[in-house]
């Protein structure tokens, strides 16, 4: 059957991907969008210059199962916690995954603050998909 219309199979994972703040490096996040698409997920791509408020609104409207942010401007230690706080304030229990240039020393700090997974440059497609699936499964 060409038409998928029953809910008997595994529900499709919906992921919101965005660049938060003033960071124009979007090559990586576009690759990640494609990797997740090819793994059968529905990727809602918000693009550049998003705010925590616009990401929260999109996550609500799109009923996101996970949020992925790409960070390449060394703002992660400020931006990731503010994103988590915004999700908490909106009472949204959605895993946050960070990708991009994250120095190794910062990884435990981000993990400690509640980031569900961190994907560095060169992370293979399989690792990206596993991280998203794992983060979603851990919340359901």
């Amino acid at each position, binding site marked *: 059957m060409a038409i998928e219309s029953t809910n008997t199979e595994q529900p*499709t994972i919906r992921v919101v991907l965005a660049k938060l703040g003033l960071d124009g490096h979007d090559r990586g996040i576009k690759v990640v969008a494609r990797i997740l698409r*090819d793994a059968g997920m529905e990727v809602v791509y918000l693009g550049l210059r998003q705010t925590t408020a616009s990401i929260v609104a999109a996550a609500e409207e799109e009923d996101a199962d996970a949020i992925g942010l790409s960070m390449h401007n060394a703002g992660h230690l400020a931006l990731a916690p503010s994103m988590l706080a915004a999700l908490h304030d909106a*009472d949204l229990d959605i895993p946050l995954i960070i990708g991009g240039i994250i120095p190794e020393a910062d990884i435990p700090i981000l993990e400690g603050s509640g980031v569900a997974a961190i994907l560095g440059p060169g992370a293979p497609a399989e690792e990206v998909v596993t991280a998203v699936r794992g983060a979603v499964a851990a919340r359901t």
Partner: protein
Amino acid sequence: MSVKKLSVPELVGRALEGDRRAIGRMLTLIERGGEPADEITDLTHPATKGAHVVGITGAPGAGKSTLTGQLIRHLPTLGLKPAVLAVDPSSPLTGGAILGDRVRMDDVAGDGGFIRSVATRGYAGGLALSVPGSVRAFDACGFGPVLIETVGVGQVEVDVAGAADTTVVVVNPGWGDAVQANKAGLLEVADVFVINKADRDGANDTRRDLELMLDLSHVSGLEDGTGYRPPILMTTATDGLGVEAMWEAVTAHQAHLEATSALERRRAARFRYEVASRLTTRMERSIARSLDGLTPDGRSPATVAADLAADLLA
């Protein structure tokens, strides 16, 4: 408390009160289909208020998302509370999708309006199977108008005309000549034409070709049946130019529909269409069940199909 743990009636109740997370979750269940979706249809149907449904369709890259983004910025200034269903294609190979329409609708989400990205999930025709149910849900939750942005379409994907009260067809300068304009299909379903990217060369040629095409509809008597001639608007969506005039044309069409009882006819047709599509879905499930494990047994395919049909329809 997570909306995922609510029962369907509780979820719909919260959604009808305007809880955005509940609305988002309800749309997910509608998209997944099956019994919860049917239950939501039953619960939202009595709460509908008859929101104006506007389809926006056209080729990939014509500017549908950018126009829709401008509309949802404009409509709240008129005291309206728009909702958008932005449809993008699912991969036929993996089922995955990149839903990118929000990129061109930034700064508007959460501002009273509501944008939902929808994947086609294998449904052809330019929409997703769930669209009528999602439109009803938005209507019941007090949104209006409901804008449906189709996938980028070719010449024949005209399902949106069955799902909307007013269909806007977006074309661009240099899209083709007068012969293209008179081919059957997409252009026939337009209630409003928009020539977007009108700052580019050839916009007036495109306008002339469309006007000529509409003149010929007049010659054929198609126009007389309705007394309505689709207007042609010029827009430059990236700058918002022409968007207000475009919306005026959409509301003029709505007024025409209301004045001529055409609205009632369209909505009755839409009702029949939705019942037919739900019936088809049920039948397809039954067909899938009867095909399960079927192997060649020497009888012709026609005979096997006739026998199975007799069982299915018994």
